[in-house]
């Protein structure tokens, strides 16, 4: 995508919807924007059907506002609630068979490197906790072992939100859910730690209660993946519908998690530390 690609021909200028014109005139394409600029430019997400107060849609909104080059980004998803907002966005987006996201992203990244050898094309996986920790765990880990230069972002609501509340590997031990009536029996899968030992050169664990941090780590993760290797960002994105808390409590729940399973964590290789000093 680029402004040139989305600029309408003269004949269509008048009849296009306002949202489209805004995207051309006040959008983020070729015009560096960040989380700090939210509220002052036309974002690339349109109206979406996420529930009121959904942490996943907030996480996506923050992540998309942090893309260093939205016009040269390809977002890869998989089934889950994240599909709702991502499919409403003006960014190249591809859904995949459940769990296949990092395999598909690998192919796309390699193909883009051949097709555009002089350009950075960022391939970013944005999927739920079930998509990574359960159904796509093998393909995710293997893309890290192979050192594919892609960024993987987990939108962790600690449940299968989209299908009505089954437990996920990322649900907390003991958590009672619609379809886990006696509570989950084992601990949260340590995907964040696994990322570090499996080849990711950078990782960050954040929550939507810290939007500027989310923006900063997503941006860094994408820039690092361009140059050095696979990166991983895990964002806590609470789900009021399945966790059964009122929708105005999403930030409060995320803040509480920051004192517990979602304390801020970051890891990076020496090469990444050196690289970050210079950007």
């Amino acid at each position, binding site marked *: 995508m680029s402004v040139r690609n989305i600029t309408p021909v003269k004949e269509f200028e008048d009849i296009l919807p306002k949202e489209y014109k805004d995207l051309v005139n006040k959008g983020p394409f070729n015009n560096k924007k960040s*989380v700090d600029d*939210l*509220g*002052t430019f*036309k*974002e*690339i*997400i*349109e*109206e*979406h059907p*996420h529930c*009121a*107060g*959904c*942490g996943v*849609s*907030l996480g996506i*909104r*923050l992540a998309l506002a942090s893309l260093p080059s939205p016009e040269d980004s390809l977002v890869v998803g998989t089934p889950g609630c994240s599909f709702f907002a991502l499919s409403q966005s003006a960014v190249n987006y591809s859904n995949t068979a459940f769990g296949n996201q990092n395999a598909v992203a690998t192919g796309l990244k390699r193909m883009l490197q051949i097709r555009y050898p002089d350009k950075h094309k960022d391939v970013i996986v944005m999927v739920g906790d079930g998509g990574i920790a359960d159904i796509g765990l093998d393909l995710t880990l293997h893309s890290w072992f192979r050192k594919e230069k892609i960024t993987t972002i987990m939108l962790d609501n600690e449940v299968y939100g989209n299908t009505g509340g089954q437990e996920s590997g990322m649900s907390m031990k003991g958590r009672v859910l619609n379809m886990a009536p006696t509570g989950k029996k084992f601990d949260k899968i340590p995907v964040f730690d696994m990322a570090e030992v499996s080849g990711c050169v950078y990782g960050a664990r954040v929550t939507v209660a810290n*939007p*500027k941090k989310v923006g900063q780590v997503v941006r860094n993760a994408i820039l690092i993946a361009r140059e050095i290797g696979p990166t991983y960002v895990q964002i806590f994105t609470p789900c*009021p519908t399945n966790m059964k808390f009122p*929708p*105005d*409590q*999403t*930030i*409060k729940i995320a803040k509480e998690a920051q004192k517990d399973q979602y304390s801020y964590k970051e890891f990076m290789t020496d090469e990444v530390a050196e690289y970050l000093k210079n950007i």
Partner: protein
Amino acid sequence: MYVTVKVDKDKCTGCKLCILTCPEANVITLNEDKKVCINSNRCKGCFLCVSVCPKKALKEGSV
């Protein structure tokens, strides 16, 4: 009748915390006067913005 949020312009300092908290894109924007403005047509009434406003400038309301 729809639920939405009303802004008390006298209390708003334009800190943008609400903008960074709303799960909807382009529903809260910053005006030229550096006060926030709500697009009531697209607000889902979650009141997350109300919960984070340090100046209590946002209130639950309806249209």
